């Protein structure tokens, strides 16, 4: 064992250190299409002190550090582009403290979405968090760090807007508290009323620091939840429909999807509208308001509420929706990747047409999926393609399609979400030079040795 290996094994314990080919293989890749790069070491720390030691060692030895949640962003963000140490955060998965009245919970940097959901259901049944549809193994911290979205995004914004504090380990090995917790024992805000430093870490993919704790805002969890699906054959009317729906302020979440199969979905755009309520009366009132908000489209025959088959409803109401993961096996190949730019809702028709064009051009299975952010302030439009991992040609066509998506997104005014390395470069090239200047300043100061997930946000 070399000295670094020995040191790492001393820090985390031999059982939680590996430089073996098996871990090198697995942690070199994610389920998406980005090319693999092997780590030199993989460690699984159990506490922030171990992470500090690892970071200090890496700083001394100039070894790249790549924190990893569950690796489910699909855009290669945890692939160690320059080798080094992959830090699998998932052993740090405790739920540290819930403040029910203030509605927040502090979790460790590797706590999974599923664990938090299960914990809240059992212990705080009146509280919930904004859970995404990525698999339950996805971590809270990583999702927040990539500006993920979830079930409450239509109401409250990105999941990163729904946090109230961070603890991060800097490249120097120092631990930093971000938000009200820097001054107060209470974690009620990620920034205000202080200067908001959370932006130094959120969206940086670990290139400026490692998130070891995150305080997540919790929201009322109602006893009942239901879903309606409004369908239209006119993609150009979707933005107006969203405008009317979001005006009601009655809706929990709005997802839109369009895909050619199964047959029930063919040729239409489906707006899935989720509503919640503590009583039948509340739920029915919200249902009525949402239905009536779209009445003009029904009268003009431009759209209508479909009957949701009894077998479909439980699938849609699951959190997370396991059917999202099942999309990966449509081609019997376990593969799916999507480019999901954040873009104005008014661009929905163009995006919807583009994905069909690309699917036909590259002969791919697809699903166009969107989640509304805020009251229609923006949307995430996901150009999702499913591929067979054992078919190199299909994988190549999918890469090409996604490349065209990236170009299209930028041309259409979108901004890449959880950008691949290539997309990051495209964004950097297009970015306002002064904005880029600030990013450079941040990166230079927070990661002077360039060891924090290098290759990502390479602004220097």
């Amino acid at each position: 064992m070399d000295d670094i290996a020995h040191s790492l094994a001393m820090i985390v314990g031999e059982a939680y250190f590996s430089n073996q080919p098996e871990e090198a293989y697995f942690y070199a890749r994610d389920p998406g299409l980005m090319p693999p790069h092997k780590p030199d070491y993989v460690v699984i720390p159990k506490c922030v002190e171990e992470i500090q030691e690892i970071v200090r060692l890496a700083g001394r030895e100039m070894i790249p550090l790549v924190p990893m949640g569950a690796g489910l962003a699909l855009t290669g963000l945890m692939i160690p582009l320059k080798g080094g140490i992959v830090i699998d955060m998932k052993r740090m998965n405790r739920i540290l403290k819930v403040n029910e009245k203030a509605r927040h919970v502090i979790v460790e940097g590797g706590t999974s979405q599923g664990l938090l959901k299960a914990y809240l259901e059992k212990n705080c049944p009146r509280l919930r968090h904004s859970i995404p549809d990525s698999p339950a193994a996805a971590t809270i911290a990583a999702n927040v760090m990539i500006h993920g979205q979830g079930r409450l995004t239509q109401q409250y914004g990105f999941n990163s807007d729904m946090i109230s504090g961070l603890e991060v380990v800097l490249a120097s090995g120092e631990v930093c508290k971000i938000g009200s917790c820097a001054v107060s024992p209470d974690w009620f805000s990620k920034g205000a009323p202080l200067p908001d430093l959370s932006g130094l870490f959120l969206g940086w993919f670990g290139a400026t620091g490692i998130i070891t704790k995150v305080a997540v805002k919790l929201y009322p969890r109602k006893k009942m939840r239901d879903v309606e699906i409004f369908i239209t054959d006119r993609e150009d009317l979707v933005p107006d429909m969203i405008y009317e729906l979001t005006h009601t302020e009655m809706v929990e979440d709005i997802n839109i999807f369009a895909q050619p199969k199964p047959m029930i979905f063919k040729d239409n755009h489906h707006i899935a509208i989720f509503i919640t309520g503590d009583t039948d009366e509340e739920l029915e009132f919200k249902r009525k308001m949402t239905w009536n908000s779209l009445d003009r489209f029904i009268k003009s025959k431009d759209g209508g509420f479909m009957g949701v088959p009894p077998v479909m409803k439980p699938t849609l109401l699951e959190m997370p929706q396991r059917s999202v993961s099942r999309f990966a096996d449509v081609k019997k190949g376990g593969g799916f990747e999507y480019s999901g730019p954040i873009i104005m809702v008014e661009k929905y028709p163009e995006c919807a047409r583009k994905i069909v064009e690309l699917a036909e051009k590259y002969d791919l299975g697809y699903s166009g999926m969107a989640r509304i952010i805020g009251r229609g302030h923006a949307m995430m439009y996901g150009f999702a393609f499913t591929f067979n991992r054992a078919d190199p040609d299909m994988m190549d066509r999918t890469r090409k399609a996604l490349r065209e998506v990236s170009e299209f997104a930028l041309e259409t005014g979108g901004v890449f979400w959880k950008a691949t390395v290539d997309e990051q470069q495209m964004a950097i090239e297009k970015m306002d030079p002064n904005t880029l200047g600030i990013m450079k300043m941040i990166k230079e100061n927070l990661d002077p040795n360039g060891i924090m997930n290098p290759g990502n946000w390479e602004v220097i």
Partner: protein
Amino acid sequence: MIALKYDENLCKTCPTGDCLVKCQYLDVEKKTAVAEMVKIGQGEDSFVLKECVTCYACEEYCKRGNHPFYLITERREEKGILTSPRAITQQWIHIGEPQGKYRLGDVKERVLSFGFMPEFLQWVKGKLFEDVMPSFIFGQEFFCNVVYIHFANTSIIKERLPKIVDNIRKLGVKEVIFIHDECYAAFTHLAPAYGIEVPFKSVHYFEYLYNRLKELKDSINPLNIRAAYQRPCSSRLSSDQHHFVADIMKLIGVDLVEREYQGENALCCGGIYAMAFGYDLAHDVQKRNIDDMVEHGAQYCVFNCPACQSAIGHKVAKKGITPIHLIHLCRMAIGEMGEQEGG
């Protein structure tokens, strides 16, 4: 060429105009009714073409067999008047398209047809069906397509129904017991109205169940419950079978509550109205219907059609009434299902 058998003179000389006079959604008297139907027959515009909600009831109200609702549907399609939004119509057309995913049991000359209702694959079991099962057919290839009259589309029926008839015929089937009311109606009411020949005998599952219950009468334990019956739209096309509902209830000890919205005055489940017209009409119809069940002391709501059960089953349950399909009710009566399973 498949065409509707409609006689303009029957409308012109109609003494009652009952098709529209009795309509629960239009408020017209006899003179207007006759005049509008004549206009429709002649291909002219009529407010009826816009306002009819597709409940099918006028097919029953017309005692002259002149198919007012089929006629309205034909004219709507000719004039491009949609009932439902385009996307909904399109979706339903896609759903009904044969996919090669049908299922066949051990098909004999006598067969049970489940149409395209997957519920029946689970529900149709036990002693009541043992003399025919496992002879069954299921899938879009056996789907009757009648539902498209809700969507102002008879072209698709004319295109698909003859193929469905042929699919059944090719199996060597001589008698089909239709578990879905609307399928029975397709082959005994709609097909003759369009001159489509049906080379097999069609039996309604009501009649089948009634006969089987008589055979198994020693196994019947009277249920001693009060129930409301939810009459589906398709029952207006199979109204000759409607009497079996009361007959069966009598056999199995169910007191069918006398209520306002029953028989010819039955209200449909509103499932189609919701898709076609939005919240208010469907909500109103469902509320009146269910309140009527509650007011008359129904403990159970008996369904004939799984689509109705899907549309309002949970709503009746919220009012303390147990939703149950007729098949489950009969199985309960012969001790094959517990109360909880049937609900």
